[in-house]
C-alpha cells in the first residue's frame, strides 16, 4: 500500500486510534531487556539467536501484520509483545524520527520517505548480506534498493511489496477492452465518471506520461499544468483517501481513474466489483513499501528478526493473500498459487520490466514545481 500517504484510510485510522496507546506504552517500556544493545548492521547471522522480548512496529498493512504477529511470536519464543501501529500518513512516524526516536523499532516506509529519512540519518543500515529476506528478492527489486536505498555501500531498506503508483483502474463492464493509455483520463465522453488522485507527485506524473515526458524529470512543466487544467472538470473529485476511492469504484460512481493495485485487488476479489487494472502504453509507474529500522530503535535485534521473518517467501505471499499487494520475489506466480487461486495470482502478473517506470524520488525543484502546479490546478 505504497503511499496511503497523507491520506487516512478507514482501517488505518481506527487501527491507529487503538494502537496509539499500545505504541506509547511500548515507547515507555521498550528496550528494557538485559542484553547488549547492538546496531542492526552488527548482527552477524540469522535467525537472530538473542533478541529483546518486544518489538514496536509501524506498518500500514494491518491485516498482514495481524497474521504475521502470530507467526512471528511462534517462531521467536520469548517475544512477549508485538506493538503494532497502523499510521495514516508517513509524516506521523517521520516527525517522531525528527524528534529523536526512542520507541519505534520497525517501519513499513514508502519509497520517497525512505530516501528522505536515509538522507537525514534517521535509518539504520541493514545486514542484507546475511538476510534471506534480501536473497529472495526479485533482481529488479534488489537492484532498485541498491540504487536508491543505499549510501556508501550500505543498504537501508528491504522492499516488502512492489506497488503500482498508481494503477490505471477501470470498470470492466463499462469498457469493452482495457484502456490502453493514460489518455483515457482526458476523454471528454467520460466526464463525471472519473477521478484523479489528490497528490501532486501522482497526478503530475500521470500528466507527464500523457504528454510524452519523463515523469521523474519533466522538461515542460507548463504543458503538465495545461493538460491538468484541461482534465480538471472531467473529475468527480480529487480523491485523498484510499478506501473512499475504492468504494467509489465499487459503487460505480466512477469508471476509470488512478488507484493502487492492492485496492483494485480488494475491490475485485473481496467485493466482487467489476474492476481491473490496465497497462497503459506510456508505461506503468511503480514503487516499493519497505522494511526499515529507524535509528534509536530500542529493540534492534527483535526488529531485524521481524524483517527476516516477514521477508521469508511464505510471509511475503501472505501479504498478497491478505491484501493484494505484490511481493517483489522471483517465481512470483508459482509462489502465489500456493496460497491463492490461479485467477488471483494472475492479477500480480504485471512485472514486465519493459512497461515499468520506477517512481524515483524527486529533486527539490521538481517537487516544488509539481506542488505549485497541483495547487494551481486544484485552486481552479
Amino acid at each position, binding site marked *: 500500500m505504497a503511499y496511503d500517504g497523507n491520506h487516512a484510510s478507514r482501517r488505518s485510522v481506527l487501527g491507529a486510534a487503538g494502537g496509539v496507546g499500545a505504541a506509547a506504552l511500548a515507547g515507555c517500556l521498550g528496550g528494557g531487556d538485559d542484553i547488549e544493545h547492538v546496531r542492526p548492521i552488527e548482527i552477524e547471522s540469522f535467525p537472530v539467536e538473542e533478541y529483546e522480548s518486544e518489538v514496536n512496529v509501524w506498518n500500514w498493512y494491518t491485516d498482514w501484520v495481524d497474521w504475521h504477529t502470530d507467526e512471528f511470536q511462534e517462531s521467536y519464543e520469548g517475544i512477549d509483545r508485538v506493538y503494532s501501529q497502523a499510521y495514516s500518513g508517513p509524516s506521523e512516524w517521520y516527525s517522531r524520527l525528527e524528534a529523536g526516536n526512542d520507541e519505534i523499532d520497525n517501519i513499513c516506509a514508502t519509497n520517497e520517505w525512505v530516501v528522505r529519512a536515509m538522507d537525514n540519518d534517521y535509518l539504520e543500515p541493514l545486514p542484507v548480506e546475511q538476510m534471506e529476506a534480501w536473497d529472495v528478492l526479485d533482481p529488479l527489486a534488489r537492484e532498485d534498493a541498491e540504487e536508491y536505498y543505499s549510501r556508501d555501500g550500505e543498504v537501508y531498506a528491504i522492499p516488502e511489496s512492489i506497488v503500482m503508483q498508481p494503477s490505471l483502474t477501470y470498470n470492466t463492464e463499462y469498457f469493452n477492452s482495457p484502456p490502453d493509455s493514460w489518455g483515457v483520463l482526458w476523454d471528454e465522453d467520460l466526464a463525471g465518471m472519473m477521478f484523479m488522485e489528490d497528490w501532486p507527485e501522482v497526478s503530475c506524473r500521470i500528466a507527464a506520461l500523457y504528454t510524452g515526458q519523463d515523469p521523474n524529470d519533466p522538461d515542460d512543466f507548463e504543458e503538465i499544468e495545461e493538460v491538468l487544467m484541461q482534465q480538471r472538470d472531467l473529475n468527480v473529485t480529487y480523491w485523498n483517501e484510499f478506501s473512499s476511492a475504492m468504494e467509489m469504484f465499487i459503487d460505480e460512481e466512477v469508471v476509470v481513474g488512478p488507484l493502487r493495485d492492492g485496492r483494485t485487488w480488494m475491490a475485485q476479489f473481496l467485493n466482487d466489483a467489476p474492476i481491473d487494472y490496465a497497462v497503459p502504453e506510456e508505461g506503468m509507474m511503480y514503487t516499493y513499501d519497505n522494511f526499515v529500522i529507524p535509528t534509536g530503535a530500542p529493540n534492534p535485534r527483535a526488529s531485524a528478526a521481524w524483517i527476516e521473518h516477514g521477508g521469508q517467501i511464505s510471509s511475503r505471499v501472505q501479504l498478497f493473500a491478505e491484501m493484494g499487494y505484490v511481493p517483489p520475489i522471483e517465481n512470483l506466480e508459482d509462489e502465489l498459487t500456493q496460497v491463492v487461486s490461479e485467477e488471483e495470482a494472475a492479477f500480480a502478473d504485471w512485472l514486465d520490466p519493459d512497461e515499468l517506470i520506477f517512481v524515483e524520488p524527486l529533486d527539490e525543484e521538481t517537487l516544488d514545481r509539481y506542488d505549485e502546479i497541483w495547487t494551481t490546478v486544484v*485552486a481552479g
Partner: protein
Amino acid sequence: MLLLFFILPLLYMVWLSFHDGMPPASLTLENYLNVVTTDLYLRVVWRTTVLTVQTTALVVVLGYTLAYSMARFSKRTTLLLLLVILPFWTNYIVRMYALINIFSRDGLLDWMQLVTGLAQEPSGIMYTHTAVLLGLTYVWLPLATLPFYASLTNMDDNLIEAAKDLGAGPIETFFTVTLPMTKNGVIGGIILVAIPTFGAFVTPTLLGGTDQLMIGMVIENQFTEAFNWPFGSALSVIVSAFVVLMLLIAVKFGAGDVVTRRSDTQ
C-alpha cells in the same frame, strides 16, 4: 508554560517563515512575497474566507436557535446539553466517515429524500461545496451552542417581560433586548467557529470535490508532502494574523466587555 507551549512555537514558526530553506539557511522575504503576489494563494484565502463566513453564519443561526429553544422552552436542559456535546465523545475523523456514508450516493440522505419524495433518484452531495459546508457546520455547531446557551441563561428574564409590557412584540423584543443582551455569547461563539474553520483541512479534504481547496489544505501539504516548511510557516503566520484580527474585532465589538466585567467584579 505560556511561553513554552504557545509563544515559543509561534515565534519559531515566524522565524522559519523568513528563511529560504530549513535553518541554517539565508533569510528572505520571498515566502511572504510569494503569497501576496501570487493570485493563486489570494484566491485560496478568499475562498477560505467565504466558506468560513458561510459556515459561521449557518452555525450562528442554527446554534442560537437551538440554544434559545433549550433555554426558554425546555425543562430537560441537562439532557439536551448532554446531547449537544455528545458528538465530542467521538473522534473527529470517525464523524467525518459517518458523514461520508450519509452524503454518498445511495447514502442515508439520498434514502431520506427518496422516501419523502424530495428527490426522484439518488444523487448524493459528496464532493460538493454543500457537503463541506454541512460538514463544517456539523463539527462546530456544538462548540458555538454552549456559549450561546450560557449567555441566554445568564440574561435577566425580567428585561423581556419589561419589553413586552412596553408594547414590543416577540420579534422586536428579540432584536432589541435578547440579542443585544447575549451579544458577548454570540461573539464568543463566532470566534470559536470562525478560527478553526479558517484553518480546516480534514473536512474539506474528505468531503470536498475539485473546488474545495482551503488554505489549511495548502499549509498541510507544504509540511507533509512538499516539505517546504518555510513557505508553510509563512502561510500559517498569515492564518494566525487572521485569528488575531478576529480577536481584536471581537474585543472591539463586545467580547472584551466580558473580560472587563469579570475584572470589575473580582
